[in-house]
C-alpha cells in the first residue's frame, strides 16, 4: 500500500513536471537562524601624528553587537584589510560569510581636528550601502562613531538606530561615611557621564521630557521626596511638586504639556496629572491601595500604572481621565513599573518569577508575559526609543550596575562603571541634542 502510494506520488510528481516542463523547481524555506547579521568591521585606517584616544571602529562594533542584531566577525579571520573602497575585494568577504562590510579611515587635519570617513558595503550585492565623511573635533569623535552605528544599523535592519541617544541614571557613592548621589547623563554606551544633579540625599526616578531637553526627577534634598524639573542644557531647575506626603514618579505626557505624578497629599499614594502651564492638578485614582508608577501610552490617551488593590502589585491601565480601569497582569505575585514601547504594543515591566525580580515584556494584544532576564533584583526597565533594546538596573556581586537586553531577550550586555552603585536608567528620546563637555 505504502509503496504504491509512493509510486503514485512519484508518478504525479513526474506528471506535474512533464505538464509544466517550463516550470522552475521551487523550494520553500520557512525556517532560518535567529542570530545577528554577520558584519566585518575593518579597523579604520589612521593618518596623522597624534592618534586619537577613541577607536571609531571599536565603538561602532560594541554598539552594533550590543543591539543583538549583529555578529561581528573577528579581524583575525579577515583575508584582507581594505582601507579604501578600491581596495575591497568582495570575494574575500563572501568567503568568510560576512553579509556586510564596514571600512573607514580617520585623518588628522590639524591637531585635534579629524576627518572621519566610512563606507558600508553589501558583500553579496557588491554594492555600497552608505558612505559618509565627517570633519569633527576630538570631543566629537565618539558622537561621530555613534552616528556611524546608527547609519549602519538603519541600512542593515531597516529601523532607526538609537546609538546617538543618551541615558540618564542615578549613582550612589560612599566617601567618608557620607553618601553622594548623582544624577548622570551619558552616551548610550555609558561613556562620558556628566553630572546633572549632586546631592547628599537620595535622588530617584529620572524622566526625560519628550523633546529630550529636560529631566524630571525626585530629590530628597529637603528630607522628603519632591519632584523637580531641570533643563539638560543649562542645569536650571524648578520645583514641581512639594505637597504633603510623597511627591514622586514623574512621567511626561507625550506632548510634553502634562506630568503624571504620584502624590499622597490626600492621604494615600494616588496618581494625578498636572498641567505644566497652570500647575492645575487632576486626581485620577481613588483607591485605598497604592497607585503609582504611571506611564503614558504613546498616543497620550491612556496610562498604565502599578496598584496593589488586589493585595499585591499588579499592572493596570486606565484612560487619561481616570476612567476605564482594567487589570493587565495576572501571572505571578509581583508585576510593577510598566512603561510603553514607542509603538505602544508592548510594556516593559518588573516581574517576580521564582523568587527573583526580572525584566519582562507584556504584549498588549494578548497580554502574554515574557521574561527577558535571568539575573535577580532587576529593575527600572527603559525602552530604547526604537523599541529594540531595554536598559535596566541589576545587581552583580553586591553592586548595582546597568545592563541592556535586546527586546527579544537574546542579547544582554552589562555596562562598566568606575565608581559606586548605578541605578534607575532612563533612555532619552531620539531628539536629544548631543552635548559634549571636554
Amino acid at each position, binding site marked *: 500500500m505504502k509503496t504504491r502510494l509512493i509510486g503514485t506520488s512519484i*508518478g504525479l510528481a513526474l506528471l506535474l513536471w512533464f505538464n509544466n*516542463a517550463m516550470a522552475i523547481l521551487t*523550494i520553500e524555506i520557512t525556517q532560518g537562524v535567529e542570530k545577528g547579521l*554577520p558584519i566585518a568591521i575593518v579597523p579604520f585606517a589612521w593618518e596623522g601624528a597624534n592618534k586619537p584616544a577613541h577607536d571609531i571602529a571599536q565603538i561602532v562594533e560594541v554598539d552594533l553587537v550590543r543591539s543583538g542584531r549583529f555578529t561581528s566577525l573577528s579581524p583575525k579571520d579577515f583575508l584582507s584589510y581594505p582601507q579604501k573602497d578600491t581596495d575591497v575585494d568582495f570575494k574575500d568577504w563572501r568567503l568568510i560569510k560576512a553579509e556586510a562590510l564596514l571600512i573607514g579611515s580617520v585623518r588628522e587635519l590639524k591637531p585635534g581636528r579629524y576627518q572621519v570617513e566610512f563606507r558600508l558595503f553589501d558583500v553579496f550585492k557588491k554594492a555600497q550601502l552608505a558612505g559618509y565623511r565627517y*570633519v569633527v573635533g576630538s570631543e566629537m569623535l565618539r558622537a*561621530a562613531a555613534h552616528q556611524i552605528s546608527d547609519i549602519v544599523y538603519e541600512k542593515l535592519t531597516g529601523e532607526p538606530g538609537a546609538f546617538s541617544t543618551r541615558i540618564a541614571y542615578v549613582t550612589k557613592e560612599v566617601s567618608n561615611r557620607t553618601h553622594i548621589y548623582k544624577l548622570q547623563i551619558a552616551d548610550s554606551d555609558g561613556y562620558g557621564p556628566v553630572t546633572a544633579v549632586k546631592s547628599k540625599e537620595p535622588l530617584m526616578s529620572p524622566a526625560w521630557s519628550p523633546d529630550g531637553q529636560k529631566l524630571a526627577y525626585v530629590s530628597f534634598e529637603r528630607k522628603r521626596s519632591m519632584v523637580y524639573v531641570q533643563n539638560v542644557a543649562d542645569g536650571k531647575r524648578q520645583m514641581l511638586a512639594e505637597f504633603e506626603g510623597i511627591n514622586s514618579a514623574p512621567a511626561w505626557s507625550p506632548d510634553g504639556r502634562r506630568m503624571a505624578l504620584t502624590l499622597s497629599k490626600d492621604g494615600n499614594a494616588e496618581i494625578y496629572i498636572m498641567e505644566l502651564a497652570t500647575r492645575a492638578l487632576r486626581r485620577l485614582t481613588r483607591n485605598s491601595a497604592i497607585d503609582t508608577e504611571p506611564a503614558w501610552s504613546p498616543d497620550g490617551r491612556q496610562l498604565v500604572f502599578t496598584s496593589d488593590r488586589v493585595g499585591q502589585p499588579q499592572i493596570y491601565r486606565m484612560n487619561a481621565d481616570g476612567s476605564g480601569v482594567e487589570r493587565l497582569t495576572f501571572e505571578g505575585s509581583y508585576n510593577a513599573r510598566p512603561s510603553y514601547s514607542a509603538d505602544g504594543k508592548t510594556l516593559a515591566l518588573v516581574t517576580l518569577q521564582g523568587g527573583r525580580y526580572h525584566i519582562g515584556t507584556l504584549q498588549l494584544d494578548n497580554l502574554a508575559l515574557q521574561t527577558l532576564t535571568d539575573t535577580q533584583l532587576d529593575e527600572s526597565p527603559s525602552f530604547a526609543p526604537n523599541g529594540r533594546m531595554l536598559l535596566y538596573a541589576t545587581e552583580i556581586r553586591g553592586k548595582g550596575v546597568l545592563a541592556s537586553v535586546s527586546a527579544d531577550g537574546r542579547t544582554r550586555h552589562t555596562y562598566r562603571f568606575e565608581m559606586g552603585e548605578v541605578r534607575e536608567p532612563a533612555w532619552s528620546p531620539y531628539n536629544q541634542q548631543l552635548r559634549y563637555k571636554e
Partner: protein
Amino acid sequence: MVVTQAIRISHDHPEGGIKPFAYSLAIHLMIVALVGLSFHWSASNQILPQHIIKAVIVEQGATEPPKEEKKTEEVKPKEDSKQKKIEQEKARELEKKKQTLAEEKKRKALEVKKKQEAEKRRKQAEQSLQEMLQQEEAEAQQAAKAAQAASLVDQYKVAIRQKVSRNWVRPPAARSGLQCMVRVRLVPSGEVLEAKVVRSSGDTVFDRSVENAVYKAAPLPIPQDTELFDFFREIEFLFSPED
C-alpha cells in the same frame, strides 16, 4: 540629530566626471551581455527535459501516470497488433505468388524480381518493427529513469532547503505572513551565478536577507549527474517564514 556635519560619499570617486560614467556604462553593458548569454543558456537547457517528456506523452497517453508495471503491459498489445499486420501482409504475398505461378511462368524474371522486392520489403518491415520495439524499450527505460530522478530531485531539494535555512539570518521583520521569492541560477559546481528577488516581501531588509542566505549557502548540494543538474540550473526559493 548630531551636530556634526556629514558629507555623503558615493561609491564612485568623489571627483566624479566622465570616468565613473564610463565605468558604469561598461559594467552595464557587461551585465546586459551576461544576462543575454545566460538567457540563451537557460533556454536551450529547458529543451532537453522537454524532449524526453514529449516522447513519453505521445506513446503512453497524456492522462496515464507512468507506472512501471503498466508500461510493459502497454507495450505488449502494440506488439501483437503489429505482428498481426505483418502476418496479413505475408498471407497476401503468398496468395499473389500462387496466382502468378498458376497463370504465367513466362514472367519468371519479373516474378523473381517481385519476390526479391517483397523480400526486401519484408526485411524492411521487420527492421522497422525491430526499431520501433527498441525505441519503445528505450522510452520505458527513460520513464523509469525519470521516476528515479524524481525521488533523487526530492532528496536534493531537502538538502538544499536545509543548507539555505542554516544560512538564513532571519531578521525580526521576517514574520509569518511575509513572503519573498528569489530566483537563483546555478553553475554545475553549485555556485550561485545570480540570486534575484522576483517577488518582493515589501521589506528591503527581508529581501536582502533572503538573497544573502542563498549566496552564503553556496555551493548548493546539487547532483553531479548532468541530466539531473538540468533540474537545478535555475531554481526558485520561496521564503515564507513561520513563527
